[in-house]
């Protein structure tokens, strides 16, 4: 399968995911990867990722398929973790494989931009002083997603 979508608590193996993408086709010339991790600062200890089971997988699969078509990808991987993740831990991996680097890198940006505001995940921050708060959506993330155009209405 050229599309791989996972929502899981466990960490992922970037080396293995890259090897899987790489082996999908002899016609791959470039792979793009983005890995998001919990950024520290201001006493942050951890993030807890909540999601909408079922809908999350559906949305991520639609997004991956849209990326495959839009950028003529030869392969694509989206892995998103849920649960409690400490500062420095990986949250998300987006990987793309294409004949040429431009498509792979553009598709990587597309997938992570769209995922940020279009997939049902929510982050709660927990700080060293005991304070905890849900992360507000960032307007710039919504702008970034919008630059790729509207998500086409999915047939259900």
């Amino acid at each position, binding site marked *: 399968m050229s599309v791989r979508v996972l929502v899981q608590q466990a960490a992922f193996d970037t080396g293995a995911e890259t090897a899987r993408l790489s082996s999908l086709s002899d016609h791959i010339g470039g792979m793009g990867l983005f890995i998001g991790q919990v950024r520290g600062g201001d006493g942050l200890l951890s993030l807890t990722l909540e999601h*909408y089971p079922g809908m999350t997988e559906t949305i991520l699969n639609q997004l991956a398929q849209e990326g495959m078509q839009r950028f003529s990808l030869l392969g694509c991987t989206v892995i998103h973790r849920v649960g409690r993740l400490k500062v420095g831990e990986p949250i998300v991996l987006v990987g793309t494989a294409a004949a040429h680097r431009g498509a792979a890198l553009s598709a990587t940006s597309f997938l992570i931009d769209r995922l940020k505001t279009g997939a049902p*995940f*929510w982050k709660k921050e927990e700080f060293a002083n005991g304070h905890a708060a*849900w992360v507000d959506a960032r307007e710039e993330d919504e702008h970034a997603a919008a630059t790729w155009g509207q998500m086409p209405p999915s047939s*259900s």
Partner: protein
Amino acid sequence: MTGHVNILYFAALREQLGRESQQVPLSANGQSVADLLRVLRQHDAMLDEVFAATPRIRVAVNQKLGGFDTCVQPGDELAFFPPMTGG
């Protein structure tokens, strides 16, 4: 045709309401999400308070993002949640 809809709440909404789901009866067809929500808020002070205090609530109907004008059918799964913050 009568029945019910299952409503899910996520993230800050879930926490503030102190519940992650509820079943509500749906007696008539042709109701929109907004219609249903208006009735629910009239009968549930806490729900009314939390929804009034939370900007930009999103809705999904049967796990598909929709508008508050989406028509609700018996058996549907509705979900309310704040703007998504993945990645």
